[in-house]
């Protein structure tokens, strides 16, 4: 089976990887590049645990092939913090206890960042609709929404 050579950028760093043609980007990130922050939930695009940004746009990495990543800029959960300094969203998720088991959390953080990057002051309805593609079976969502609102407020103060 011929593997395909792919050159891509992950969190600003150029990476080269050999992919099976049918291998998902999620599997390439986790199994070939060892970046296990991105989680697999359903593998059918329903749960959002595998959310990453492709050229700034939010997608499910389980519904994209690794070979499709040629030449794109990928942002994963590993690229959200600034070194050892947590991103404000990560800090607010901790402060608000917006997670329990944690499997959905990387997807929520990446999705919420994509929202705040384009809409720094979203109302609650906008947040809930935007995050409708991320499923959490622990928290009941309310703490997640509060964490995103609080993060947006802090980012607005900083701006």
């Amino acid at each position, binding site marked *: 089976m011929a593997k395909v050579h792919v050159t891509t950028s992950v969190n600003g760093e150029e990476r080269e990887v050999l992919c099976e*043609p*049918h291998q998902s980007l999620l599997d390439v990130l986790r199994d070939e590049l060892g970046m296990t922050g991105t989680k697999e939930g359903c593998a059918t*695009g329903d749960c959002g645990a595998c959310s990453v940004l492709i050229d700034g*746009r*939010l997608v499910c990495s389980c*519904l994209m092939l690794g070979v499709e990543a040629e030449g794109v800029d990928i942002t994963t959960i590993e690229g959200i913090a600034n070194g050892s300094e947590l991103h404000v969203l990560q800090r607010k998720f901790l402060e608000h206890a917006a997670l329990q088991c944690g499997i959905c959390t990387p997807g929520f953080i990446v999705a919420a960042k994509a929202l705040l990057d384009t809409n720094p002051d979203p109302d609650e309805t906008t947040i809930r609709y935007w995050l*409708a*593609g*991320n499923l959490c079976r622990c928290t009941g969502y309310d703490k997640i929404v509060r964490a995103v609102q609080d993060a947006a407020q802090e980012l607005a103060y900083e701006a």
Partner: protein
Amino acid sequence: MGAYAYARPTSVEEAVSVLASAAEAGQRTQMLAGGTDVLVQMRSVDRDPRTLVDVKHIAETNRVEIGSDEVFVGAAVPSGVLNENEELKAIFPGLIESADLIGSTQIQGRASIGGNLCNSSPAGDTIPAIIAAGGVCVIAGPSGTREVACEDFLTGVGTNVLGDTEFLLGMRFPRPPARSGDAYLRFIPRTEMDIAVAGAGVALHLDADGNCVHARVAIGAVAPTALLVPAAGEALVGTQVDDAALAAAGAACSAAASPITDKRGTVEYRIKVVGVLCRRAGAIARDRALGN
């Protein structure tokens, strides 16, 4: 399992030649746009090896062009990109809403209306909206391009007119005149992200006195393919799109429906609901045409 392969043509000619050589060698191909249906299918119901032909690196399939007479939407443009196009949204609010009903933010970052059409599900939400808006499929093949009205593109559940060496470049729409409106409504048991039990799309033009001079109505999830319902359009033309005209159009939609009973709904229920959706979508399209 045999081998999957991946091709990434950068021109229409190259894509057609990939398809032609695979067809000659007896190898299976499948076009890949957003992949939100294809990747799920290749891990579940349809695992057979094939060459995936990525259509996202061809200029024509990425084009969105709003001309004075015509609008072109490339087959690979993600619905999230369409939804950010305010001019397109103002021209075809119903079509864009139908795309916005499909999946989450993540799905809409990849999924395209061309892919929704080519997947040819009876319940594809954008299909009735495309048909109502008068969409014409532009198909590339070995002898150039051909055009097929969207309502004639679908041939059955999951099937369409595309040959082994053809693929969808995009859809052409006549640009609606002033006092036009379109709308698409579907019924699902929850508020978000589900598959239509029934759907109806309406596109119409009004004259200066508010009389309907043109109307197209299409229904989804109530037959093996989405259907144009000419009798429903005719029921609206020549009227002020009042309650009586909308009721007649709704009745025409119910009469045209030939649904199945499944976990989403019964035959009787779908026949009734598709008529209601037609009436409501017709009223929204009318109000949009009136600028309300």
